[in-house]
């Protein structure tokens, strides 16, 4: 599949002479040295990411890792120091001001961590904003906004002001606004990070549900690994402005490329995140203790086996046998490569 959005050799260095610093960083100077010797801050270092159409690409990293900087490069809210950003093969860096505005209006919409709604406008007017900016016919704009507000569960709240709504509902307005724009790319900058855990989980479900229906190309930023694993088709992990590992989330979980990621993944509930598909092996026997779906998670399988590690299950999807799962393999997959005690000792 060709990439909908492609980032090529992207660098961002904050400071008055950022462009002059690129060669230094290319030759391997690190963030601390750059700041110390030249007074420039390294934002992003040699980012290469392909984002496939219709997939959710999650960019994850701790605060200061450059993830919010990265997402703002896609619609050029922040100008890169060097590199290319290709959208459907077109270089965003070559757009003039008017073309750039047209691209922001028609091809990319954005959802913000702090909602960023217009406080003096009603929910309805906020959802209409992307279309009214483009000067669309008001009747169609009103209808579109109403439809999307209803779709995210805000029917009946149209005439309220954002301040009258809870955080979760405000972010629903933010999502409705992005959907009304009717763009095929949606950028979500820590969209659910400001919400309570329960509401956050609701919103993640809403997003997945919408995605099943709309098949948009979504770029999602988060610092929460559980959220990343729940949403991601493609996971990119950033550290100090560089990509440490990217790929299919299950793969990253099972084979973390470096201690930083091991650290990250060691604290999550692997049984709930890992799926049977990721740990199944080729079939080498005839008798099985039962059948499982490849998309069921390990937690469900453990419940099914009643904790018996001698069981072996057959993985079946739509009547076809894909492989088998040995409960002993499963137990091993549950243990991160580095135990937390070792990490504590190593520190």
């Amino acid at each position, binding site marked *: 599949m060709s990439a909908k959005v492609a980032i090529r050799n992207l660098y961002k260095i904050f400071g008055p002479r950022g462009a002059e610093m690129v060669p230094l960083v290319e030759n391997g100077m690190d963030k601390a040295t750059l700041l110390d010797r030249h007074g420039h801050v390294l934002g992003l270092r040699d980012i290469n990411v392909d984002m496939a159409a219709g997939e959710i690409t999650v960019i994850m990293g701790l605060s200061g890792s450059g993830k919010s900087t990265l997402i703002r490069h896609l619609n050029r*809210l922040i100008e890169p120091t060097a590199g290319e950003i290709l959208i459907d093969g077109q270089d965003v860096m070559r757009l003039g001001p008017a073309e750039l*505005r*047209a691209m922001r209006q028609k091809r990319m*919409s*954005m959802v*913000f961590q*702090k909602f*960023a709604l*217009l406080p*003096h406008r009603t929910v309805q007017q906020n959802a209409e904003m992307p279309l009214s900016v483009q000067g669309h016919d008001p009747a169609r704009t009103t209808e579109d906004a109403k439809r999307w507000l209803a779709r995210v569960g805000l029917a009946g709240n149209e005439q309220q002001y954002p301040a009258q709504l809870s955080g979760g509902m405000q972010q629903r307005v933010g999502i409705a606004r992005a959907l009304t724009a009717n763009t095929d790319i949606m950028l979500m900058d820590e969209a659910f990070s400001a919400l309570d855990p329960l509401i956050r989980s609701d919103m993640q479900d809403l997003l997945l549900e919408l995605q099943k229906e709309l098949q948009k190309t979504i770029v999602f930023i988060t610092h929460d690994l559980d959220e990343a694993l729940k949403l991601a088709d493609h996971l990119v992990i950033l550290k100090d402005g560089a990509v440490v590992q990217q790929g299919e989330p299950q793969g990253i979980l099972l084979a973390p490329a470096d201690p930083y990621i091991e650290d990250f993944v060691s604290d999550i509930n692997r049984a709930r995140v890992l799926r049977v598909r990721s740990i199944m092996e080729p079939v080498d026997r005839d008798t099985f203790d039962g059948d499982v779906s490849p998309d069921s998670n390990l937690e469900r399988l453990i419940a099914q086996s009643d904790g018996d590690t001698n069981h072996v299950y057959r993985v079946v999807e739509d009547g076809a046998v894909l492989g088998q799962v040995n409960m002993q393999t499963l137990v091993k997959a549950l243990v991160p490569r580095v135990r937390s005690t070792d990490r504590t000792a190593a520190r």
Partner: protein
Amino acid sequence: MAAYESFFDALGLRDWCDADKTDGPMSMAQLLAQTQGGDAGAEGPVLPFPSLDVLHEACHRIGQTRDVTEGLERGFLDIRPELKLVLDPITQPLSWMLDGALWVAEGTPWWIMIPALLLLSYLVSRSKAVTAFVAAVLVFFAVIDHYDVAMQTLAIVFVCTGLSVLFGVPIGIGMSKSNTAQRLIVPILDLLQTLPTFVYLIPLIFLFSVTESKLYGIAIILYAIVPVIRLTDLGIRLVDKDVVEAANAFGMNAWQKLSRVELPLALPNIMAGVNQTIMMSLAMVVIASLVSAPGLGVLVLRGIRNLELGVGIVAGLGIVLLAVILDRVSKAALARVDQQRGH
């Protein structure tokens, strides 16, 4: 021998100093010394500060301090015709507006004017209590026969505030968009705010005739425009960065951003600036009565000049009452804007 003479001798500048030597006018210190019967040079301190006057005594080539003020005055008078040529036509509409407003205020019978003002206060404030208070104040002015002067003052305040907002808001917007503009304009605003008000009346009196209304109009506007500029600038700079970012992300152009996001979000601050502008133009109306502005200020001035205690105090309190009703009405409007947003 005057102090510092030997200094010029040592530098070998004596010939240069004494060339075309004429007796310049005496400095104030010399004049005082002379009238007291002494000699300025002999009785002075041993080492006086080398001021212009002192150095002038030692070397006649160096100008006296009075040359500075004189030069300033001459320079101003020299450019005065050109300045007048440019400024007169530009500011002429101000005279027309002020005269028109005064004509309306004086010509409209009270039984039309008072209901019209009450309607206006209600439309702006949407508060019955505030409107009732305005009614009480207007009736009070009428009862003590100060209705006409109060209306004149009100007319001047309306025109000057209106123009201040008309010019101040765009200037404030420009300042908020450019740090260079802000750096250049802030000192001017500081100057306008701190320069004693009488001081900038002086060049105005030279430029325009005292019988023209624009003279006091300009004085009031220069003084009152400052807060609306400052608070527009501040208001737009304080607009939530996230919301501006969202406006950019959805592809708004500069005008859409200004009209749909920045100005509406800055409105509470701008309204606070308008409120301050109203208060300051009211304060200036009294000083403007020195240069023929009609209204309550004239009575205050009469109170001071003739020591008519009662006249001065009644007119002064009248200005306070006007200030209070203008403040309440504009604050009620501000509160209404805030409330609309569902806070």
